[in-house]
């Protein structure tokens, strides 16, 4: 039994020690978390408040400061899974291509005759030309206007596909361009969601792309998902339009080049406005909550130079006429232009309260979402329940732990005590690993730890039962212990690998609670095999070496 090399003993000791050091910050969770927050603020160049200074002093900077990341079910917060309507953008892309086609075909007017746009629907832009004989020339010309798609997979593909249907050219987005557009839309959406959530001042939000067209948003500490949704649910596309007239119902025929939008604060009122915006939200560089001259909440904004110039010119030419401020296809307000507004700043009034004007300002600053979001899943855990869950989980863990410890000592005496020390180290290692890899601990994760407590003793039970058997055949203690470990090994490996397989499959296929559970279960299996095989063995060897017992009772 004395064959465990010294370097192995030292290595095993070091792993245990490392685990204890790395798990230690979790014992002082609140202190460490506050200190970490203060440190992040300081790193971002913020001036620290006295409380933050104190928090910073609470945990030394040289000490490990990674703590287990608590999941939303344990600390409270909101979880949203949204789908981005990526195909919304296709029509815009085609719309943007139309002027190019028109101008391009104008150059070959002698061959193609008149050019007329027929329709843009179902992802198809249809263009009719007057001279059917000129179709090959027209096709050639439009094809020459398309650009190659730059992407890894779409090598050689062009952005638009052009086909002929009778006297009509049919322009659609190519598959490669659709994929490229989807990716751009997703990246833009992620960025804008991130900006909106950050601006609202919450801590450590998780914003992840999931699959082709989904985004997962998790914000700890927020009381309701409604709050988050109010921030994310709107596209926030702001435009300033020329008002043509008013209508009594939304079905009124607005005439070519115009559209009908409902008014937000006057029920039953509709505005007919020019489809083309005078200035759009893309030209905004800043927006702030403000108050108008009557002291009512409003939003002040500033345009970039080109937007400011366009706005200035428009207001100069249209004094006395109303213009419409349109947010997401609804008219917020339609003030009458009193005078020329140079300099590119202005103020939006409407029926806001302070909260709404603050939100609108955030939305405008962050920019418009390129496509609509639809919410597929929403989960909110209130902070009260989070605390309850932690308490319940903690109590369950401690009771389970204590019961197993007592049971092991009753069954195996001193050896049971060795197994218990290994079990405590095991839990410490799980916490250390969770802290270091930054995995999130959820309530099912706590269940996984409790289960690990139950199963971790299995390997030791296997070994101890083997040692008992070997002792029965009158072997010397050292030899019996050695054989016990040796013979139990294959069963321990097989049994744990099968459970590990289940944990890995859970992790890769699961989401939410399933995943949280699989993380702690998988980590628990790895650490429990280590502690049950190596840690107990080192303890037993040390005991044998110092005490040199003639007989072993197990």
């Amino acid at each position, binding site marked *: 039994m004395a064959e465990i090399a010294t370097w192995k003993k030292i290595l095993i000791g070091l792993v245990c020690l490392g685990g204890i050091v790395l798990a230690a910050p979790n014992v002082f969770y609140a202190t460490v978390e506050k200190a970490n927050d203060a440190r992040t603020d300081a790193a971002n160049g913020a001036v620290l408040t006295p409380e933050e200074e104190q928090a910073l002093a609470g945990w030394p900077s040289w000490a490990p400061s990674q703590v287990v990341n608590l999941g939303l079910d344990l600390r409270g917060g909101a979880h949203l899974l949204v789908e981005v309507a990526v195909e919304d953008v296709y029509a815009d892309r085609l719309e943007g291509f139309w002027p190019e086609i028109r101008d391009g075909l104008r150059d070959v007017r002698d061959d193609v005759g008149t050019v007329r746009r027929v329709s843009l629907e179902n992802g198809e832009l249809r263009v009719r030309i007057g001279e059917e004989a000129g179709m090959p020339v027209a096709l050639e010309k439009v094809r020459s206007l398309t650009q190659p798609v730059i992407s890894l997979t779409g090598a050689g593909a062009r952005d638009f596909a052009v086909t002929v249907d009778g006297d009509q050219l049919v322009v659609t987005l190519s598959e490669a361009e659709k994929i490229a557009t989807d990716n751009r839309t997703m990246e833009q959406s992620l960025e804008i969601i991130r900006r909106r959530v950050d601006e609202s001042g919450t801590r450590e939000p998780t914003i992840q792309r999931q699959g082709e067209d989904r985004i997962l948003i998790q914000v700890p500490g927020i009381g309701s*998902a409604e709050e988050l949704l109010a921030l994310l649910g709107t596209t926030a596309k702001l435009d300033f339009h020329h008002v043509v007239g008013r209508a009594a119902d939304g079905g009124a025929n607005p005439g070519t080049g115009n559209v009908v939008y409902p008014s937000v604060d006057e029920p039953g009122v509709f505005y007919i406005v020019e489809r083309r915006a005078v200035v759009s939200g893309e030209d905004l560089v800043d927006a702030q909550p403000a108050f108008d001259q009557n002291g009512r909440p409003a939003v002040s904004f500033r345009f970039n130079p080109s937007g400011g110039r366009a706005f200035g010119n428009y207001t100069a030419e249209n004094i006395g006429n109303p213009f419409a401020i349109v947010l997401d296809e609804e008219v917020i307000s339609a003030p009458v232009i009193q005078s020329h507004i140079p300099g590119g700043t202005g103020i939006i009034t409407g029926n806001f309260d302070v909260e709404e004007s603050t939100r609108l300002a955030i939305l405008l600053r962050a920019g418009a979402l390129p496509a609509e979001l639809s919410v597929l899943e929403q989960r909110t855990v209130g902070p009260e329940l989070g605390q309850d869950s932690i308490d*319940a989980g903690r109590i369950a863990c401690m009771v389970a732990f204590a019961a197993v410890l007592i049971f092991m000592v009753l*069954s195996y005496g001193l050896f049971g005590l060795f197994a218990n020390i290994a079990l405590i180290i095991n839990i410490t290692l799980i916490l250390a690993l969770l802290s270091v890899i930054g995995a999130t601990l959820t309530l099912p994760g706590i269940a996984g730890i409790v289960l690990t407590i139950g199963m971790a003793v299995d390997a030791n039970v296997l070994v101890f039962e083997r040692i008992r058997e070997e002792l029965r055949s009158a072997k010397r203690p050292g030899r019996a212990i050695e054989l016990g470990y040796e*013979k139990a090994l294959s069963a321990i490996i097989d049994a744990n690998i099968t459970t590990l397989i289940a944990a890995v499959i859970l992790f890769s296929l699961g989401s939410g609670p399933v995943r949280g*559970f699989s993380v702690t279960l998988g980590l628990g299996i790895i650490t429990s095999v280590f502690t049950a095989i190596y840690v107990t063995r080192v303890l037993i060897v040390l005991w044998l070496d110092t005490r040199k017992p003639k007989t072993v009772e197990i």
Partner: protein
Amino acid sequence: MRLRLVPEETHFDFMKFGPIGVAISGFFIVASIVVFFMMGLNFGIDFRGGSMITAATEEPADLSTYRSTLEALDIGDFTVTEISDPAGELTGAVPNQVTMRIEQADGDETIQQDVIAQVKGALTETFPGIVYLQTDSVGAKVSGELVQAGVLAVLLAIGAVLVYIWLRFEWQFSVGAVAALVHDVILTIGVFSLTQIEFNLSIIAAILTIVGYSLNDTVVVFDRVRENLRRFKQTPLAEVLNLSINETLSRTLMTSLTTLIALVALYVLGGEVIRGFSFAMIWGIVVGTYSSIFIASPILLKLDVKRDWSKPEDGGGAGTQFANIDA
């Protein structure tokens, strides 16, 4: 004085009970399937779509007040249940909790955001001090995918261990172990149909752990069988199986008991959220322990392991060439 669950040496004739065990299990499997088709599972919103709101009030609130408040909103089918947590005193959980489940409107792929807002608005008006502990809402699109992923996970896990045991032992062992596994999964689903305990994502996690645990148990017995097959080359298979089960009995009961202790603590004290989960696990441990003795081994006996000893013993014996792993 040591605590001993079983005497040092036992000589139970488990194989004699094999046919009885298989018959009893057969009955329960059929019963589970019948119950499943008659009553179905009480699928939670994870798999069916819909919303679930857990709220608490300071004062005890009347369930009928909740019902009438929700009824007035005309939001379709809903259920209101009071949560009584016996461990609430000990763990300090919020008292007077109520869970409302609101069915998803047909054909609606996204969640019913406005319905939740309406319900919360109306409840806050009726019970001014109400606190919303948890709000979950899953759209039909996602819930469909969650069902698929759940079923796929269980099937994949079973397939993966089938292959693993086949590589490590022989195919007969593999069939025995997987039969025990499928037995456990079917019985677990049967119990959930019978009790109508909510079947949600965490239950899938529980079933997968049962898969892992059941295997764990079976593999320990089989490992001993393989070893004994090598030692007692002429002994009839039934005797080898009996010997192996008896030899591992002490360990089987110890481990099952420690795991059960941990799970019972979780069931009683862990709070409402993981109660269904711990229940599934407790059931799985009991069934899994039973099946590794009374299902897996009799099937192995029936299939009869190939015992070709022409190869030298250190060449692997009853196992394949993968059988010897030395760490």
